């Protein structure tokens, strides 16, 4: 819906955002500059962190900011501040204008975006905004007790936060978004094993820390006294977090700018079937399990974009700039200008199917169940080989059953090959990891996953 409706955060009301913008625009006008764009944001974030079965770090922050981009004769630059009084606003506009006037003109520079109506998903929940240090601590205490009762040690976080962002320009553009977010993560550690679970949701009422504590504790119990098997190619069952963190490394390349720069693995592959028939991927901010704004860094509404359909790479994403340069239409995925990387997907949804993780295990004669992956880095940008480690719950599957825990592996895996070797997909869920932003992805059963080394635990 237009910026006049939808949820609103008391941290930054629409009226306050307009007030700050008008103050900035007035300063710009006095400096002889008509065209400016501003992002006005505010947020609170609190995180209760625990380890060794006690809360050891417990923090909260509140902040706001104003980021101003000036546009003068096809030149542009940006300045930001968190000082939102009159003096702070004056200074940041002056800085933006000064930086802009020192640039060389860019013939491809576009005028400010035209006003657009954005259908804004409702992502602000009172239950999350109302969380307190005590309510988080009580939930953490219950989770710790569950892990302690298994004679294990718990570490993790429970965070809650609220944010609001308005993007305005002197063309009359005004879009606004408010949302809340809650996240719980827990590691349960036994003598020689560990287990992990994590979940995020806009609504804290949907988080059940105790359930996740029990999952982590069971994984730690089931993987005790881990054995070691030789590295090599194995069938793996990747839980959703492992899929997210690994496959999530692909998506920065689904960018028209990355393609134009020839830094994307999709260079020369657009329109080709490079993944398996069972792989379809979308960028869809409107998916009910997604989060984030329904507009991009210039206020352009985000479109739902099919990136991969039945293994064929169909589309990449466009900002206004790359769309104009390449004769395409913006998909609403541009980053705030000026920037080097152009555009990126923010709301990945990988289509799932109906095979449960239990069924994947039951149909595996010999393979490895992976809870989580860690320290994933790119080895080869065009083959898309990634390296990383398994962590916190790696299991041998034998004859359709989880047989025992395993010492952790290093992998060097080509992701194009991985998405061609998928034998089964679970229903897609909102997954959280540590190496990629949250996405909606299924668990996957994959054959010939390439483990190259084993570590000591």
């Amino acid at each position, binding site marked *: 819906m237009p910026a006049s409706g939808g949820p609103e955060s008391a941290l930054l009301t629409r009226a306050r955002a307009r007030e700050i913008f008008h103050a900035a625009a007035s300063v710009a006008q006095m400096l002889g500059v008509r065209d400016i764009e501003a992002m006005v944001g505010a947020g609170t*974030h609190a995180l209760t962190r625990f380890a060794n079965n*006690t809360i050891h770090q417990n923090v909260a922050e509140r902040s706001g900011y104003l980021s101003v981009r000036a546009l003068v004769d096809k030149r542009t630059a940006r300045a930001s*501040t968190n000082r939102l009084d009159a003096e702070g606003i004056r200074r940041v506009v002056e800085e933006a204008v000064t*930086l802009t006037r020192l640039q060389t003109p860019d013939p491809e520079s576009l005028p400010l975006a035209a006003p657009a109506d954005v259908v804004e998903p409702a992502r602000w929940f009172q239950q999350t905004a109302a969380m307190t240090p005590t309510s988080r601590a009580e939930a953490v205490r219950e989770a710790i007790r569950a892990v302690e009762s298994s004679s294990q040690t718990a570490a993790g976080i429970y965070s809650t936060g609220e944010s609001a962002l308005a993007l305005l320009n002197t063309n009359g553009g005004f879009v606004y978004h408010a949302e809340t977010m809650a996240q719980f993560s827990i590691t349960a*550690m036994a003598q020689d094993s*560990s287990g992990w679970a994590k979940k995020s949701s806009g609504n804290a009422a949907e988080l059940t820390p105790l359930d996740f504590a029990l999952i982590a504790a069971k994984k730690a119990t089931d993987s005790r006294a881990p054995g070691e098997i030789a590295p090599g190619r194995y069938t793996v069952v990747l839980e959703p977090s492992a899929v997210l963190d690994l496959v999530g490394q692909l998506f920065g390349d689904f960018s028209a700018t990355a393609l134009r720069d020839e830094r994307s693995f999709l260079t020369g592959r657009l329109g080709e079937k490079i993944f398996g028939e069972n792989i379809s991927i979308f960028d869809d901010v409107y998916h009910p399990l997604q989060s984030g704004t329904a507009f991009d860094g210039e206020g352009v509404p985000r479109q739902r974009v099919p990136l991969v359909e039945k293994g064929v790479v169909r589309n990449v994403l466009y900002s206004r700039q790359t769309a104009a340069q390449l004769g395409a239409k913006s998909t609403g995925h541009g980053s705030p200008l000026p920037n080097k990387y152009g555009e990126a997907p923010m709301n990945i949804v990988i289509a799932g199917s109906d095979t449960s993780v239990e069924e994947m295990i039951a149909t595996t004669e010999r393979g490895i169940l992976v809870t989580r992956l860690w320290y994933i*880095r790119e080895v*080869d*940008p065009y083959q898309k080989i990634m390296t990383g480690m398994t*962590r916190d719950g790696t299991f041998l599957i034998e004859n359709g059953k989880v047989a025992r825990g395993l010492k952790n592996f290093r992998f060097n895996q080509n992701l194009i090959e991985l998405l061609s070797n998928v034998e089964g997909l679970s229903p897609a869920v909102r997954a959280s990891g540590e190496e990629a932003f949250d996405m909606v992805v299924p668990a996957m059963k994959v054959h010939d996953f390439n483990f190259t080394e084993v570590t000591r635990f």
Partner: protein
Amino acid sequence: MKDTALNALDATVRRGISYADVRLIETEDRNVSTKNGKIGQASSSVSQGLGIRVLDRGSWGFAATDDLSSGGIEAAAALAVEIAQASALTKKHDVALAPEQKYEVEWTSPIRIDPFSIPVDRNLALLFSIDAELRRNPGVTLAETALVFARNRQIFVSSIGSLIDQTRYTSGAGFTAFSFRDGEIQKRSYPNSFGGQHQLKGYELVDELKLLENAPRIAEEAVALHAAEQCPEDQFDVILDSSQLGLQIHESVGHPIELDRVLGTEANYAGMSFLTLDKLNHLQYGSEMVNVVCDARLEHGPGLGTFAFDDEGVPAQSTDIIRNGLFVGYMTSRETASAVGQKRSNGTMRADGWARIPLIRMTNVSLKPGRQSLDEVFGADHAIYMQTNKSWSIDDKRYNFQFGCEIAWEIRNGKSVRMLKNPSYSGISTEFWNSCVAIAGPEHWILWGTPNCGKGQPEQVMGTGHGASPSRFRNIKIGSAYAG
């Protein structure tokens, strides 16, 4: 600023807590970059705020705000205490801090040229010159250049009476040439990956790096890599340039020696450490020529980990970590030092801005120079010489690592005989350091800056320093990144 910080301390102490400190920070930064002849980024930002850390009922609380009005400060103080009291709901024992003196000090890091005195158009003129030089080579398909500058002033006040006013300037500069051809992307960076070199310096760093002069060579190497042979999969001696060795130190020494990791407080995210307490003064971490220090003092050099005081008011110190190959020291905080019975923190608590709590972070963790000449380091019958990091990964206890580099050279009888592409090496941390057989002398030692070290929840990004000179390691596994 000092009055505001003291007011915040008063507002906190008034609530009857047992300890509090306040960090009021003002940061200014500038980022200028180019890509293929156009401006990539031209931005500046300023940020001001304060963080209040409090010990009450034996537990920690922390609240940060950028509302520096008296109402905003009172609210933050009240919230910090409320949070500490909530933390106490799960308390196992009271937090204890190793003793520390109070200090009243003003300190500014030495610079020759204030980076903010150089106009942005001059920054851009330099970057566009480098860009043009890189793209003069027709094989270069993408050229990126960047400059980053920051000024950070922090007022630290604490309930033991410290008042420390500290200002640090950091600068960074570098560029990368990419070449795409026949389904292969190669790149070369100068003087390092991660945006180049970063130090506690002013604009003089940019002048020292001779960026423009090195652009043609870097462009040529990026393009030549396409025709180079693939680095084989085998076990050979490996020689690392000082920047790659700096990252090797960071990952396989710097992180494992963080005492908070050892004690489990990072277990959910960054992980733990193989350096359990029983290994102190017993583990042969490296060969006898390996000596590593953690040194935040200016005498060590202008590193990203150089300062006068850490973020809990402890003076910069130098601590031996590995002495003649033996593991002899951790990085500590006041809390962790107390927990393991040490008399004093060695001053490594650092926070990523006003909105974050200090954590144990690397300062400058450096391999001391050796005694060999460069000819002796390269004097192997056969070795692979690797330069400039391309990928890096290590397990969550810091045993198993794998690094990829941008370029390698096969060395035979001390001479480079051919270029190799896609080099990588892997191993176990202690086995690697025990295989060290040659370390070049102080004339080849460089203090590198790593600007992107992540740790903590919420995640904090910190700049760390790592000094090293080219070194040789015997019989290292190479090439497994492309194996299978």
